[in-house]
Structures are given as C-alpha cells and as structure tokens.
C-alpha cells in the first residue's frame, strides 16, 4: 500500500479535473464527487498508516519513485514521494480535516451557484497540499508549494463579486511570491553548494558544508516559511485572506497550508542543525509573531480576523518550537496537529454563526448566541478550552510542552523565549475568551432582521467530530509520549534538557496566567455590556477618556498599556508592513508608467535608443577590454 501513496495525490487531482471539465451537468451532484475523492484519499492514507504502524520504526521511511522528471548530466531530478511518519502525520491531518470540511461545505455552499467549481478547487488544494508534504525533494515540494498557493488564491478570490475580495487575493499572492523567492533562492543555493535538490542527497551533503552556507540556506527557507505561514514580517496577508469562504479559512488558513512553513523547517532540520544562527532566528521570529498575533487578536472585532490573528499566534508557537531544535520538533508538529483540530473546529463554528446571522462577522453584533445555537456553542467551547490550554483538553498537552521546552537553554535565551511563550498563553486566554464571550454570552446585540438558528446536520456533524478531537486527541497522543516516539525516526531522539525553571512551576504559572486572562475577558466582555461600535482608540482619545480605566486597578495596570501596545502594534502592522507591500507595488507601477513614456511611438527615438546603447556598449567593452 505504501507504494500506492501516489493515489493520495492522484485521486483528488483527478476529481478536481473532472469537476472542472464536467460542466453544468455535474452541478447537482458534483460536490459529492469532491467529498468522495477526499474521503478516498483519507482511506488510502489510513491504510498506509496502519501498514506503517506495523513496521519497525527504522523501516518507516519509505521512498516511492514515480518517474524521472528532469534528467540531466550533473543534475538528475526524480519525481518521488517520501512516506515517513512526518509526512504520514500530515497526510492524516490533511485528509481527515479536509474531508470533514468538504462535508461541511456541501451545506455551507449550498446556495452558491458555483459550488461545483468550489469543490474542484478544494480538491485541487488537497492534492497540492499532499504533494507538498509527500515530496521527496525540494523541487517537488516547490511544485506542491506553488500548487497550494494557486489553489488558495483561487479560493480566497472565490467570491469575487466584492472588489475587496479580489484585492485580498492579490495581496496574498504578492506576499506569497516573496516567500516563494525565498524557497527558490534556497534551492538555488542548495544546487550551487550540493548539486542536488532531493532531501536524501542534500542532507547527506550537509556535514561537509560550511556554517555560512547552511545559514544562508536556512534563512532563505525561513523567508519561505514566513511567507506561507504568515509569520512576521510577511503576516499581513492572512487577515485579508479571510475574505474567502469560511470552510476555506478553516482548511487552508488554519489547519493545513499555513502550517506548511512549520513543515518546511522541521523537514529541513539537518540544515538548521548546522546553522545555529538561522535556528535561533526561527525561534525569535516565532516568539515575536506569537505575541504580535495575540495582540492583533485583541484588537479585532471581526470574528474571522480575530481567529486569523490567533492562527498567526499559534503558528508562532510552532515556529518557536521548531527553532528550538530536536527538543522542539516533535512538539511543533504535535501542536500543529492539535491546533489543526481545534482551530478548524472554531472556524467552522464561526462559519456556523455567520450562517445563522446572515453573514454578520462583527462580534459586537453577536452576543448571547449560546441559547440559539447550542451545538455551535458547545463545539466552539471545546475548541476554546483547547486553545486556552486547559487540561485535559488537546491544547494543554501540546502548548504546555512548547512553553516548557522554550525555557530550556543557556544564557538569556530561555528567559526571553520562555517568557514570550508564557505571556502569549495569557494573552491567548484573554483574546480567545473575549471572542467566545462576545459571541456566545452577554446580551444579544443583533438586530431584528436576524434570526439566529442552528446550522443543518451536515455542518454540525463535522464540527462535533472536530470538537471531540479538540477535546481528546491531545490526551490520546500524549499518553506515553506516543506522538513523540512516532516522529522520532524523522526528528531524531532528543535528550531531554532541563528547563531553567522547574516544569511544575512553569505549568502552574501558565495556568494562572490563562485563568487571569480568561477572567479579565469575562469581566469585560461576558459580564459587562459590550458597546456595539468599537470605541475610538487612538492614543490621544484613550488618554482623554480616562474614565475607562478609573474603576479598577486591574484594568488600569493591565488594560491601558495593553491597549496602547495593541493599538500601536496593529497600527504599525497596517502602516508599515501593509504599507511596504503597497508602496512596493506602487513603486513598480510608477516606474512602469515612467518607463513606458520612453516608448513614445517615434521610430527616430527608438533608433536613438539603439545608437546610444551601442555607443555605450562599444565604449565600455572596448575601453574595458583593453
């Protein structure tokens, strides 16, 4: 069966092609073909997984040769798959969550005229994502990398009747291209230094390479990972990408594609092992993004954008773990898996809320939905508990380990990274609770035209399954270090280091911070009234509106600097990073406008350009050549 893993890619791909080509005839039943293809891929993956579990751990890496792709004298590139515990983990995550989201979409997209096309793109995405994780060389990985980019681009822009959606798709494209350049350059460097691009040869050649070379490659890979995984400074596209249909956000922007960066880093572990500077940069970027994402999450009133910020922050945790080296790899992937469940579940929950609220996304217009949408409330609540890291829910098992691992090391590094991870946990608790309470608790703030109602079973069943996963998956996989052992053939066995603080202290501190964050959120958004319009929050008006802070010391100490910091960072994010993207695009367009004026339509000017060029060339070549 392991040799048949190519079916994992081929089946969804064939289904995508079929759906695109079938035309209107397939409009009525085409989506079920999509669901079927995704489920079939899951079944293939499951069988392969079972077979792999039957093997000894050292035999679990299985290479599947497909065909010779680019033959050449020095460079011979085969298209092949690498099936090992790491890629198998992703296969299971992608196909399982993917299938649930397919099912959910059948109902969610019911009234959309192009539902068939939507499923074609979804299948295309699944195929590309599986290719990405199963590829045995950077080049083939790149194919999948571009494929998921293309598919997500198509899906973000799917509802193109609103102009801002097309803009969002464009922005995602531009930022992702920057990341792609990183990957291309990394490949170029590997090719220059090692003369090969497949994992086996590259990793075999790593010991002979100099640290500088490895650092260069590592940093380029990091750029690629940042672009795909929305890490600082390439994070700006993720929020805008929420313009796409909600199942897309759940599948691509929570569970799978955005984690490809983490996969890339973990997969390239041997390179990063040889380049400590690059590795530390990975950890630092992860730590920074986890705080940044959390702060952005506090400021958003759009439920999907808040969830997107949260995703950014959670991937920050994974990057942080991946940057810690062998102690962190397994936890990075572990958190990736649990996060895939609870975040996808929450996105589907958000979609369910929007479904019931006429596509309203402003949380200030929600409130008290727990009575109207019980299933959504319960499933979302399980996801909420999981992301908070409340024992024994999934997030606890993965996140706590990351925080603990962040405290391992020498000098100040563990204090900074660990501190960030710890504070991040508190912030997460605050903004996720804020989101939860604003949506499901407090007073109803919706208008009379809205009649919140529970979603149909096709939507709630996937949510329930994901919620069950959010609740228990962590516990199951963490028991007896099952997951860590499973990944060991790939990530290597890590010597368990000692954190600078006792593990118990860290855990208690984490839980206290989480409780504090949740409590503040309850006081402010659960028990108190939430204004229906966001309070203006420029620095000046906040200073003028001191009464906001008078009543409690708590708020004064925690809130004011927090709000300041949040607003400033969010502003900086919008102004600087988005601004930089826009400015670059503008600069290009301006340059183009100016340059096109040289093409003035006058043939004599054209001839003049040629002569001037010729004169300069002769001058330089002849003078320089003598």
């Amino acid at each position, binding site marked *: 069966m392991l040799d048949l893993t190519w079916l994992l890619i081929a089946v969804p791909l064939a289904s995508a092609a079929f759906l695109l080509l079938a035309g209107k005839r397939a409009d009525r039943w085409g989506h079920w073909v999509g669901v079927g293809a995704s489920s079939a891929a899951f079944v293939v993956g499951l069988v392969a997984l079972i077979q792999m579990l039957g093997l000894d751990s050292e035999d679990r890496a299985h290479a599947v040769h497909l065909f010779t792709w680019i033959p050449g004298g020095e460079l011979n590139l085969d298209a092949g798959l690498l099936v090992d515990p790491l890629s198998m983990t992703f296969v299971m995550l992608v196909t399982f969550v993917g299938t649930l989201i397919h099912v959910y979409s059948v109902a969610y997209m019911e009234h959309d005229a192009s539902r068939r096309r939507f499923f074609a793109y979804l299948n295309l995405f699944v195929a590309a994502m599986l290719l990405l994780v199963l590829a045995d060389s950077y080049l083939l990985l790149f194919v999948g990398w571009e494929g998921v980019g293309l598919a997500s681009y198509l899906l973000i822009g799917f509802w193109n009747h609103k102009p801002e959606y097309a803009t969002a798709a464009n922005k995602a494209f531009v930022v992702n291209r920057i990341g792609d350049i990183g990957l291309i350059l990394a490949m170029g460097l590997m090719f220059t230094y090692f003369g090969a691009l497949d994992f086996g040869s590259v990793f075999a050649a790593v010991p002979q390479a100099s640290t500088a070379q490895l650092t260069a490659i590592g940093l380029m890979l990091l750029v690629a990972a940042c672009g795909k995984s929305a890490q600082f400074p390439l994070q700006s596209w993720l929020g805008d990408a929420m313009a796409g249909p909600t199942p897309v956000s759940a599948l691509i922007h929570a569970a799978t594609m955005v984690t490809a960066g983490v996969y890339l880093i973990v997969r390239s572990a041997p390179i990063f092992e040889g380049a400590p500077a690059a590795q530390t940069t990975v950890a630092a970027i992860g730590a920074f993004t986890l705080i940044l994402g959390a702060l952005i999450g506090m400021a958003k009133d759009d439920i999907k954008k808040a969830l997107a910020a949260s995703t950014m922050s959670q991937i920050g945790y994974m990057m942080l773990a991946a940057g810690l080296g062998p102690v962190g790899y397994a936890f990075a992937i572990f958190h990736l898996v649990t996060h895939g469940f609870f975040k996808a579940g929450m996105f589907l929950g958000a979609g369910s809320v929007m479904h019931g609220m006429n596509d309203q996304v402003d949380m200030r217009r929600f409130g008290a939905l727990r009575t109207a949408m019980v299933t959504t409330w319960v499933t979302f609540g399980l996801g909420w508990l999981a992301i908070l890291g409340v024992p024994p829910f999934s997030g606890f098992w993965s996140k706590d380990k990351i925080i603990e691992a962040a405290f391992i090391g020498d000098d100040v590094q563990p204090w900074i990274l660990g501190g960030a991870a710890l504070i991040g946990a508190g912030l997460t608790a605050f903004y996720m609770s804020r989101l939860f309470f604003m949506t499901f608790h407090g007073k109803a703030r919706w208008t009379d035209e809205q009649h919140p109602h529970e979603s149909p079973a096709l939507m709630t069943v996937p949510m329930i399954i994901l919620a069950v996963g959010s609740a228990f998956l962590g516990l199951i996989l963490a028991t007896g270090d099952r997951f860590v052992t499973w990944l060991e053939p790939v990530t290597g066995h890590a010597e368990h280091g000692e954190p600078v603080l006792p593990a118990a202290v860290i855990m208690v501190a984490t839980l206290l911070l989480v409780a504090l964050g949740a409590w503040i959120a309850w006081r402010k958004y659960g028990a108190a009234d939430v204004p229906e319009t966001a309070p203006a929050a420029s620095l000046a008006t906040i200073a003028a509106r001191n009464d906001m802070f008078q009543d409690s010391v708590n708020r004064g100490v925690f809130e004011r600097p927090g709000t300041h910091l949040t607003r400033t960072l969010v502003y900086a994010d919008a102004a600087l990073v988005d601004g930089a993207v826009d400015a670059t695009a503008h600069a290009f367009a301006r340059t183009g406008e100016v340059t096109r004026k040289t093409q*003035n339509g*006058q043939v*004599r*000017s054209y001839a*003049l350009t040629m*002569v*001037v060029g*010729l*004169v300069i060339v*002769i*001058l330089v070549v*002849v003078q320089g050549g003598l």
Partner: protein
Amino acid sequence: MVNTVMFWIIAALTVIPALSLLFARKAVHVAMSVVLVMVGLAAAYVTLSAPFLGMVQIVVYTGAVMMLFLFVLMLVGVDQREDLKETIKGQRWIGLLAAAGLGAFLVSIIGRVTLPTADTMPSGDPEAVAIALFDRYVLVIEVLGFVLITAAVGALVLTHTPRLRPRKTQLEVQRDRVRVGADPVNKPMPGVYARHNALDVPALDPEGKPIEHSVSRVLEIRHQTQEGAEFRAALEDPSRKEGDR
C-alpha cells in the same frame, strides 16, 4: 598602397554629398547627392582593386536602386520639403551627439589598430569574382535568389492592385458621361466662334451666347477670364476698355 590624391578626391566626393542627408531640405536633392556618393564609392572600389565591383556598384546603385528611390519620390510628391525644425525634444542634439560619438569611436578604434597591408593585390576582375562566387559562396548565391523572390513578392503584395472592376468600354464611358449631365459631345473650345481664340475667352454658341464652362475653371477662379457678356459689350462699345473690370 593606394593613391593618396585619389583617396582625398573620393573622400570629398562621398562625405560632402553624404552630408546632404542631414541638411538638404528637398528629398530629391538628397537622392541626387546620394547618387554622387555611390559614384564616389564605385571609384573607391576601383582604387581598391575591385574594378568589377565598382562597375556593378554604378549599375546597381546609381542605375537601379537610386532610380527606384527617385521613382518613389515622384510618386509621393517630388516637391516635398521637409521642415528641418525638430519636433521631438532633445532628439536633434542627442542624436547628433550619439552619431558623432559613434563615428568618433569607430575612427579612434581603427586609429588604434595596426593592420599590415598585403603586397599582393586581390584580383577583382570578373573571372576571379565569378570563380569565387560559384565556389565557396555558391550556396549564398542560391539563397540570395530567395531574397530577391521575397522582395518581388513583397513589393507586389504591398503595391500591386489587380483589376477589381471590369474595364469600361467606350460606350459605357459615354453613357456615364451623359448620365451625369455632361456634354454629350466634346466640349467646345474656348475662343471658338469669336474673333479671339485666346484661352480666356469663352466660346460662343450658334446663337452667339457665350458658353461659360468652355473656359478652364482655374482661370475663372483666378479671375482671368473674360465673361461673354462683357466681351460683347466691349465689342459694341469700343469706349469701354477691357481693363475697366
């Protein structure tokens, strides 16, 4: 080695007329000067022991190519004068500078080079040329055939109009003329049936009335005609002078 005097004559004969390309206003003048340049070049070829090429140059360039240019010039209006005022900003000065720079570089490059001159003169007589042409270069000759075919076809495609309408018979021409109300017969000549036979005097019909359209329209526009009535009046009243009009 070549004759120095000859060189300077050729130099003057080529460069000076060539400058007309830049400064002459009338295209015809330019074309005629270029003919001179071509003759000068032919002389240069003869001096450089390529007599046959020199002859061919005269036949092909002055005889055919430049004549073709002249034909086309006549087709588009031989009178065309070009306003030498430059319309594109900076084009004139940058252009002159660039061209001068190009020339200066090329000259300085040649000045820097030491190339020996062989003592043996190449034989440029027709026989030597023929043998060379049909030996190593025979394929080029054959391919050149396609260049010429292309040129002929290209020119035909771009300029030749086949007969689109059937040729009119004399009868049809006549019918057409009557249909638009023109004279069924030939127009009377001006001055006919009158004492004058000058062009500016309209013809008289058998009744002695002047036929206005017998006088060229151009003269009418210029007011250089004599209207019939006035003419008769002048005849009857000798005291009135024609010039009084």
